[in-house]
């Protein structure tokens, strides 16, 4: 996962976004560096919640930070993974006074010059019809496709999450927002 993510970081972000790669001393140079091309979305800190200990082990979610260094909005339009029969892009939304999870129409927008954070209780990549249990420390291939035509092949670590399952794990009977 590190390899792929760091490569994505280096290749995609060098012109503009060195500071986002965690190299703080390069930030000043990055600010003044000319933009040689319009970079696509930068993907960082992706992870997948383990199915170990989950009530429903046929589905889980992937989370990550997306950064769009360019001048126009880019959308995450689809995702695929060999471990999942179905992958959808989901959002959490209020409906009839309840927080529900639903497919996000049109994908997940990453605004120009800004970020989208896919996180528990927010937008996420939903992995369904899982073909195998996902144990902590496993690595899951995940391909993201964006509206600018770019795609990212990631290797994403599986991690335990400490919040209660209902707070983030997709369910047909979500608990009300507190």
């Amino acid at each position: 996962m590190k390899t792929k993510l760091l490569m994505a970081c280096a290749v995609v972000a060098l012109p503009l976004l060195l500071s986002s790669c965690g190299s703080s001393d390069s930030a000043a140079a990055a600010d003044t560096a000319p933009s040689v091309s319009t970079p696509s979305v930068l993907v960082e800190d992706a992870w997948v919640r383990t199915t170990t200990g989950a009530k429903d082990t046929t589905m889980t979610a992937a989370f990550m930070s997306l950064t769009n260094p360019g001048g126009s909005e880019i959308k995450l339009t689809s995702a695929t993974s060999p471990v999942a029969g179905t992958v959808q892009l989901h959002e959490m939304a209020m409906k009839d006074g309840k927080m529900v999870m639903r497919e996000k129409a049109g994908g997940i927008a990453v605004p120009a010059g800004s970020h989208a954070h896919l996180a528990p209780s927010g937008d996420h990549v939903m992995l369904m019809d899982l073909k195998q249990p996902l144990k902590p420390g496993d690595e899951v291939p995940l391909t993201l496709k964006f509206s600018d035509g770019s795609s990212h092949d990631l290797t994403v670590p599986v991690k335990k999450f400490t919040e209660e399952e209902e707070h983030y794990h997709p369910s047909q009977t979500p608990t009300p927002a507190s």
Partner: protein
Amino acid sequence: MTGGVVALSNQPVPAEATPSRVVSPYGDHQPAIAAPTPKHAELVALNLLSSTDRAALGRLMRLWSTDIVALTEGRPPPGDTAPELAVPNTALTVTVGFGPRVFTRPGLTAYKPSGLDDLPVMRHDRLLPAWSGGDLLLQVGADDPVSVVHAVRRLVADAAPFARPVWRQTGFWNSTGPDGKPVTGRNLFGQVDGTGNPAVGTPEFDATVWADGPEWFRGGTTLVVRRIKMNLDTWDELTRSEQERAVGRKLSTGAPITGTAEHDELDLDARDADGRLVIAENAHARLSHHSENDGRRIFRKGLNYVHDTGATRESGLIFLSYQADVAGQFLPLLTRLDAADALNEWTTTIGSAVFAIPPGWHEDGWLARDLLA
């Protein structure tokens, strides 16, 4: 860390940017070993769950490697529940080690570094299980204790499916002088502590610290952690010259009693007007000197600690020793000090643990991959 930089040119010095305090997590060796002792540190020992086999340990090392990269760069690791606590420029470092029992697990028995065994109990030891042993070690250091506890919290949380903490020790050290330059630092007896170390970057240091085998362990080292309780009350009853005589060094500068500057060589043969050795037979500096130990050396570090129970304070030193081979380098020295060291009267070791510290890793790798992949 910048104390060794000397401006040699006459060029005007540009206004200095805030120096980066990000320590790269990558390298041939885990980076904290040769770095200055951090201001604040926590050590956590964990025991593997019975379900954690070799493959699972590999998964944990991949997770920890990801976490360590993020934390040292000041970013929250994936899934951080308190991401605002991850901040850059705190000189955060994480060091990971494996206790001897790891090498009793199926698939790992052939890879144990030579000499990696729990130390025998010394005559002066009063070891408590609560401070001893452990299968995994996490050592986290930083300029700032909030960063330390945050990093430890994430790393321990991500280890939960694999291992449970068995002890934690928190310590502190000041290795910066009033002028901002690096200093050796002092323990709570007031002694300059660590002067006899081989200097980082010398062939002597490399030969002392880095293991050259087995293959996966090349560039690794071993770490002895000993929790040493110090009796400050009885120490304070001594006169200054009695205190200096016990160590063989001056309290003011750390210089040998026979010298004037901290790094002056000990004159172990010097005698006073009455013909007595100036540096006493049982002085700590003499007994631990490499010339008195068949050339055996170690790389000593330490962290002061205090442990409060209500109004009662225990003070001491988390003694840390790095060496290529515990049995070959550290144990003979320890045996000799246990038998005769003058300091034994005021110190009691209450915890002891030994760990193999795997080599470092690079951007295309992860911790201990050559052992666990």
